[in-house]
C-alpha cells in the first residue's frame, strides 16, 4: 500500500499540484459496452460516469419535455399511439427512399418541438445507427449476401467476390430503418415528461398494476443510484492510482456492492410497503387521469394516420 502511494506521489507533477490520475478524463462508454474506444480504464470510474450519464440524460430529458413545442402540447396517450404506429410503419417499409423520407419527417417534428437539431442528431446517431453501420459492412460482400455483384474485388476458386447490389441495399435499409426508429422513440421520450409517459402507457392497454410498478421502479432507480454513487465514490476515495490488474479484487468489490445494494433495496421495499399500507393501500392501484383529447390531438392523430397511409402507399408504388 505504502509502495503504491510512493509511486503515485513520484508520478505527480509537483507537490501541491493536482495529481494526473485525478484530472484524467474517462471516455464514456455506452451502457452496453459494445462500441466506442474500448479504453482500458478503471471499472470504478466507468460505473461512476455511467451513473452520472443516466442522471444527466434523465434531467436533460425532463428539461426538454417541459419546453413549449409542438409535440409537447399533444396529449401523451395520443402521442404514444401515433408515434408507435409510425414506428410500426417504419418496420414494414421495404425501400430506402421511403425510410429517408420518414427520417426527414422526424427532423421536421424535432424542429417543430423546439429540440436543438444538433443535439437531436447526436442523440439519435450516437450510437446505435453508427454501430449498426459498422457491423453491417461485411454483409455487403457476396459471401454473406449473394446477388448481383456490382463491384468485383477478387476471385476465389473461379468465383468472383465483391460487393453485391443486394448487400449494399440491405445495409442501407437497416441503417436507415434503425435511424428512423430511434428518432421516433427519441422524439417521444424527449417531448414527454416521464410521469405523463407512464400514464400514457395505459392507452396501450398496459395494466394499471404494471404502471404502478414501473413508476415506483423509476423513482427508486434514482434513490438507489445515490447509494451506488456513494459506494463507488468512497471506493475511489480510498484507492490510489488505477485499479487495473486487480481483476479478482475488483470483481469481489462489484459483487459485494451489488449484494449490499440488494440488501438495502429489500429493506427499502419493506419500509415502502409499510408506508403504503399505513396510508390505506390495499393492493389495487388508482390513478388520477386528467388527459384531454381536443381538436389538436385529433388533427395530430389524423396527420400521423395520413402519413402512415402515404408512406405505405408510396412504398408499395416503389415496388418490392
Amino acid at each position: 500500500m505504502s509502495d503504491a502511494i510512493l509511486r503515485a506521489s513520484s508520478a505527480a507533477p509537483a507537490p501541491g499540484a493536482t495529481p494526473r490520475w485525478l484530472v484524467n478524463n474517462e471516455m464514456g462508454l455506452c451502457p452496453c459496452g459494445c462500441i466506442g474506444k474500448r479504453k482500458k480504464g478503471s471499472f470504478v470510474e466507468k460505473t461512476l460516469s455511467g451513473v452520472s450519464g443516466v442522471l444527466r440524460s434523465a434531467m436533460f430529458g425532463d428539461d426538454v419535455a417541459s419546453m413549449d413545442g409542438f409535440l409537447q402540447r399533444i396529449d401523451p396517450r395520443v402521442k404514444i399511439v401515433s408515434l408507435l404506429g409510425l414506428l410500426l410503419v417504419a418496420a414494414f417499409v421495404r425501400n430506402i427512399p421511403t425510410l429517408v423520407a420518414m427520417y426527414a419527417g422526424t427532423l421536421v417534428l424535432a424542429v417543430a418541438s423546439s429540440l436543438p437539431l444538433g443535439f437531436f442528431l447526436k442523440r439519435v446517431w450516437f450510437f446505435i445507427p453508427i454501430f449498426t453501420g459498422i457491423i453491417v459492412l461485411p454483409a455487403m460482400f457476396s459471401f454473406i449476401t449473394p446477388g448481383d455483384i456490382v463491384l468485383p474485388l477478387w476471385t476465389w476458386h473461379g468465383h468472383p467476390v465483391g460487393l453485391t447490389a443486394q448487400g449494399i441495399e440491405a445495409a442501407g435499409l437497416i441503417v436507415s430503418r434503425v435511424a428512423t426508429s430511434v428518432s421516433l422513440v427519441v422524439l417521444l421520450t424527449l417531448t414527454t415528461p416521464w410521469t405523463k409517459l407512464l400514464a400514457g402507457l395505459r392507452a396501450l392497454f398496459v395494466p394499471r398494476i404494471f404502471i404502478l410498478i414501473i413508476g415506483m421502479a423509476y423513482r427508486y432507480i434514482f434513490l438507489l443510484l445515490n447509494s451506488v454513487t456513494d459506494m463507488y465514490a468512497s471506493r475511489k476515495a480510498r484507492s490510489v492510482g488505477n485499479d487495473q490488474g486487480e481483476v479478482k479484487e475488483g470483481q469481489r468489490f462489484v459483487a459485494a456492492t451489488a449484494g449490499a445494494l440488494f440488501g438495502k433495496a429489500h429493506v427499502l421495499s419493506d419500509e415502502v410497503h409499510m408506508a403504503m399500507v399505513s396510508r390505506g393501500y390495499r393492493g389495487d392501484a388508482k390513478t388520477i387521469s386528467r388527459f384531454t383529447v381536443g381538436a389538436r390531438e385529433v388533427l395530430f392523430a389524423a396527420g400521423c394516420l395520413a402519413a402512415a397511409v402515404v408512406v405505405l402507399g408510396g412504398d408499395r408504388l416503389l415496388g418490392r
Partner: protein
Amino acid sequence: MHIPDGYLSPATCGVLTAAMVPAWWMAVRRVGRVVKSRFVPLLAIGAAFSFLVMMFNVPVPDGTTAHAVGGTIIAILLGPWAAVIAVSIALLIQALFFGDGGVLAFGANAFNMALVLPFVGYWVYKAVAGRVPLTSGRRALAAGIGGYVGINVAALCAAIEFGLQPTLFHAADGTPLYAPFHLAQTIPAMMFAHLTVAGLAEFAVTAGIVTYLQRANVPILRINHPDIPVTEAELEVRKKLGWGWAIVPIVVMIALSPLGLIAPGGAFGEDAPADLDLSKYHLSAVPEGLQRFSSFWSHTLLGDYGFASGDHPVIGYLISAVVGILIIGAVIVGIVALIRLFQTDRDSPSDGGPDDAERVVA
C-alpha cells in the same frame, strides 16, 4: 444483447411479444399470490435493482470491463417468476426512457433476457446446488454456473432471432430486409463474445453476490429458499427425519416379493370366471357382464406374472416383479416431476411479513 428497433422484422417481434404475454400474466399471478400486497414495492425495487446491476462495470481479465445482466441472481434471490417481471420492467425503462434496446423489439428483448435467461440460469443453479446448505461454497459456484449458462442460452436465442431474418424476410431479388447475417455468422459471433467476456462477467457477479450474502446477509438468501438449512450442522439433523428412510421398507418389500412363489392357491377375490364356485353365490351361470369384461383385454406382456408360453415360471415371476417395480418407480418419478412443475410456493418469494423484514435488518 439489447436488440434495437429495425434489426428484427415486425413478425418476429410480434411472435416473441405474443409469447411473453402469457409469461407476464403467469408471473403476475404466481408472484401476486405469494407476496400479496407486498408485491408492488418488492417488484418495483427488484426492477430498480435489475436496472442498476446492468450498469455495474465488471473488470474482466484482459484489463477491460463488461457488464452483467443479472437475471439469474434476481431469480435466485426472488424466484424466477419475480425475475421475469423485474427484468422486463428494467428493460422497458431502458427502452422507453434511455433508448437502450428497441421499443418494438421490447418483446424480443424480454423473451431473451427476462424469460429465457432467469429460468435457464435458475434451473442450472437448482440442479448444481441440489440441497446443500445455504452457506456452502457449492451454492455460490452453482449460482455462477447458472449465470454463465443463462446468459449464453439467452445470447443463443438472440443469435437465432437475428440469423433467421435474412432467410425469412427478404425481397424478391434476395435483398435482406432486416438484419442481414445468417445463422452461420450470428451464432459464432454472439457465442464467442458471450462464452468469453460477458459470460465471465455474469459468472463473477452472480457467484460473487451469493458469496457476499452468505457472509454478510444470509436472511436475504432465505427469501427464496425457506426450507434449505443454513449450515451443515442443521442439515444433519434434518437428514435423519428425511425421505431417505422411506426407501428401507420399500427395499424390504422388494426382497420379500419372491415369497409369492411358495404361496399356495390364488389370491382372494381374483378368480377367473371359470374358477368361480357358482353355487356359493346361488348363481346358475357366470353373469354376462362379468363374462364379457373379464376377458376383453388379453394383450398383456407378462400375463399371470409369467411368460406367455408358461415356461420357466420362477424366472417369469421374478422378471414380472422387476418390470413392475421399474414401471411404478417411473410413474412416481413422473408424478413428482409434474407436481414440482406446478408447485407454486417454492418458486416464488415467501410472504415473509414483518418478521422477515426484521431478520433482514438484523
